[in-house]
């Protein structure tokens, strides 16, 4: 077995399971971020649109990463699971970026 496979095997069984309190803290942070997101709806007339897009996108990505890393245990599990999931994500982003370029930028729609 190669070193990489050995690493993966050991990592896969690294029984690092956070405590319930840790999960509660993560959930509280996620709820706080969601509250910020919802708050933008009520102030959008007084805030520049670019700022709303930017802040909502950043909060969305942070929430996505937190759920995937902690609740789905990607942070603690074998990197192979990360590769599979991120691979799917990267493929999706790549394919649909091309899709948007084809429809919007090149006017092929």
């Amino acid at each position, binding site marked *: 077995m190669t070193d990489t496979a050995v690493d993966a095997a050991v990592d896969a069984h690294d029984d690092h399971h956070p405590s319930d309190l840790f999960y509660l803290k993560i959930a509280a942070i996620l709820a706080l971020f969601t509250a910020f997101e919802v708050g933008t709806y009520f102030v959008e007339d007084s805030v520049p649109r670019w700022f709303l897009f930017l802040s*909502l996108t950043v909060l969305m990505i942070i929430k996505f990463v937190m759920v995937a890393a902690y609740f789905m245990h990607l942070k603690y599990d074998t990197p192979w699971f990360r590769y599979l999931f991120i691979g799917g994500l990267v493929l999706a982003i790549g394919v649909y970026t091309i899709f948007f370029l084809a429809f919007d930028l090149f006017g092929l729609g």
Partner: protein
Amino acid sequence: MADSKLSEATPAEATETVTEHTVEHGTTTGISNNKLLMWAFLGSECLLFGALISTYLLYKERFNDFAANLAPFEQDGRNIGPRFGGEDGEGVFDIPFTSISSFILLGSSLTMVLALSAIRRSEYRSFRIWTLTTAALGSVFIAGQIYEFTEFVEKGLGYSTNIFGSAFFTLTGFHGVHVSIGIVMLLATYIMHKQGRLNSDKAETVEIVGLYWHFVDVVWILIFTIVYLFPQ
């Protein structure tokens, strides 16, 4: 993590460690095939939801198409979209209502992870409570979505009203179906546990159901922001 363990171990110890893990899962890689399959499935699901979200983004500006009954959706010549348009001008989307649904689904991710944590510690009563709570929260989310869809139809936005409606209902409907399947999976794990076929030795089954459930949650994180919260 792994490096430090291996650097301290002799080659024989390292081999022994890996052998132990290999025996545990019965796979040559030492990685659970079931979890690997679930992650591969979730990776492919990214493409499915990527397609649905992209289609929605492409057609979200077509809110006014063939929707004379939905006027006024324009104010001062500007397309004001589903958040503020509609017959009464109060909007088709109900952001505060959907926000509560989002908090409920987010909360169900917490209860799911607590259920997994409980079964790993062989705290079966807690496991049953958290599993049923997760399924109940998911059901409340689905009930909210059905109510929301009914409201949209009453306000004049149906599946075939315009291309915006088709893209919107397809995206959120597919997500709703995923949540419903997740609820069935949760109830199945509960029943298996009650029948004595699921205990701490098989906590991985709960973990796999949890992965699916959390994925449904992360997809909603994207949908909620992109569909409901992004300014028109």
